[in-house]
């Protein structure tokens, strides 16, 4: 059991439950919205887990994770919208996006991982914001603020039946239409699962141990002969590739790529929040954090809307409860979490069990 990293049985149980729920999501929660939520959770689990490898295991704070996510997504989107909706375009575009992420990450890493961690955070923030502005300015290529809408190969279309029933219509299994969208969902799910297991494997490998040693005491790791900058650059590049792959998946799923879905500062805040809620340096936390926050994003806004309506006559309260003020409450929750709950859900549960 200990081979799979830290985490008590209750944490593992929660993660397992989320995994099963995601696997069966199209059947358990039929409808358009739940499957969107489930696919988003899958993509964000990869995104957040790779970020956790960076911040939680290596102690490197980067604000460029959405940029890499965006590179993967835009690579796929641009290729698909510039040519036909072929498999070749999808693969080439995705591969180019991932490659661009890797090259950029290694460049940034070599340039600025030499200096102090806090400097690195500033540099990545600056680079990521330029990427965001570039994406909205180069509208010929990226569609600007409006983003790109495109078709994926026909196999993923809701109009494509996977097989036919006796009457020649799209077959149904437990009442759910077996169409291209189901196939697309399972592509996202299994790819995400594979990437997540790969990340989990890295954290329990000798590499993971070295990374923790560097995080705990950089000078000592250096003295022991580990080339700290090389390790950090490697991890930065690796997590950038993971984020870009998540971006490819998201681009395939949404058939739309724009600044708001991939590059924006709000997505970066979401990732940070998910890592902190779930628990930094645990990997399990990525699953819990992504699931909790994505659900909250889809369903809590409705609650806020209702609350704002109910308090309509009062001063200031409706303005504060307006669903557009979502980010205000997220920010406050974030600050309080970092103060009082820095270990997150996974860390706190594990610690509580260890104490018994």
């Amino acid at each position, binding site marked *: 059991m200990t081979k799979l990293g830290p985490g008590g049985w209750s944490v593992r149980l929660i993660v397992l439950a989320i995994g099963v729920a995601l696997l069966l999501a199209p059947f358990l929660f039929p409808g358009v919205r739940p499957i969107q939520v489930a696919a988003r959770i899958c993509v964000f689990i990869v995104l957040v887990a790779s970020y956790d490898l960076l911040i939680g295991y290596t102690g490197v704070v980067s604000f460029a994770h959405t940029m890499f996510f965006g590179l993967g997504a835009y690579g796929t989107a641009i290729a698909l919208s510039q040519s036909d909706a072929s498999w070749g375009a999808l693969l080439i575009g995705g591969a180019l996006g991932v490659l661009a992420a890797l090259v950029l990450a290694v460049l940034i890493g070599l340039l600025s991982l030499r200096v102090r961690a806090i400097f690195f955070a500033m540099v990545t*923030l*600056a680079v990521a914001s*330029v990427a965001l502005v570039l994406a909205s300015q180069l509208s010929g290529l990226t569609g600007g603020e409006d983003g790109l809408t495109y078709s994926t190969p026909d196999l993923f279309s809701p109009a494509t039946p996977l097989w036919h029933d006796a009457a020649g219509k799209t077959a149904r299994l437990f009442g759910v239409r077996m169409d291209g969208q189901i196939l697309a969902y399972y592509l996202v799910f299994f790819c995400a699962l594979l990437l997540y297991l790969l990340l989990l494997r890295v954290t329990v490998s000798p590499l993971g141990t070295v990374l923790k040693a560097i995080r705990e005491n950089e000078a000592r790791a250096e003295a022991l002969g580990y080339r700290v900058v090389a390790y950090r650059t490697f991890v930065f590049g690796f997590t950038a590739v993971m984020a870009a792959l998540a971006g490819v998946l998201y681009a395939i799923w949404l058939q739309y790529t724009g600044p708001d879905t991939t590059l924006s500062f709000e997505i970066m805040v979401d990732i940070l929040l998910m890592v902190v809620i779930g628990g930094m340096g645990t990997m399990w936390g990525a699953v819990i954090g992504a699931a909790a926050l994505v659900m909250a994003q889809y369903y809590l806004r409705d609650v806020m809307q209702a609350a704002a309506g109910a308090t309509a006559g009062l001063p200031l309260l409706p303005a504060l409860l307006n669903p557009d003020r979502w980010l205000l409450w997220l920010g406050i929750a*974030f600050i309080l979490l*970092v103060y009082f709950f820095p270990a997150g859900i996974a860390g706190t549960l594990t610690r509580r069990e260890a104490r018994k």
Partner: protein
Amino acid sequence: MNQLSATMTRLGGVNLLPLIVALVALALIGAPSIWITLTVAGLAMGMMLFLMASGLSLVFGLMDVLNFGHSAFASLGAFVAATVLAHMSGWLGADSWVLNLGALAIAIAAAVGAGLIGGFLFETVIIRPVYRDHLRQILITMGALIVSEQLIIVVWGGSPLPVARPKILQGAFIWGDVSIENYRIFAVVLGVMVYAGLYVLLNRTRVGLLIRAGVENREMVEALGFRIGRLFIGVFMLGSALAAMGGAMWAGYQQLISPDMGAKMMIVVFIVVIIGGLGSIEGTLLGALLVGLIDNYVGFLLPKAALASNMVLMMVILMWRPNGLRPAAK
């Protein structure tokens, strides 16, 4: 080569960079009248950036605290000043320059006051619990930036706010075929005055001596009998007030401000301190002037590359000097 670098050092070393940049730009632009206009615009922008960035740099130098929420004070100052100016349209439009500048002075004073109060609250509530913990510091101050931006939307609404300029600072000053906006001259004058004030404070007063000593070795300052914590609150409030003043000036310069100004300025402010080096106001001024000048020159020469120019500048400086041009001695 060695001789050349020795000569450069004697002439002022990295301090000459803005001058070199200006001369290269003159050669590329050709027309002196355009060059003068662009240079003044660059200096004005640089001075406003200096106001916004100096506090960040000083706070980092003294306490090893990097406040990712620093530009929230610039945003706060901008909105407070815009509100005050909106209520003083009588004075702003009057034919008396005393009333004109009086209104502006009151608006800037209100911004500075808001910066002082905001800085005090920010230091005691947000920063104090996470001294010495960089990871949580980055996360919490980043959260504070988001919250402050949202609070500005709650108070002032989400749509951009127009900012009135005093009558005397409208229009431009024409000299031959050179035209310089009055507001830019004002920004440069105010920036130079603040820099001079800071310079005197840091180099000619006992408090300044304590700050400089604290940047180098805060433990020893405490062992000599001084409470560095109190000094730090003071510096933090001063830095916040300067950022608010810079924000107020920026508001008048742009004449239209929106709540995401804080997050946008943060990026530029970071580039300034990364280039200049953290901890010294000389470095911050150097970085701010370089960014301001290059932004304006490139904006004229290659409009499409203006944004990337600052990024390229930052990368080049990082390759050459990983800690910036003039970081504080540690």
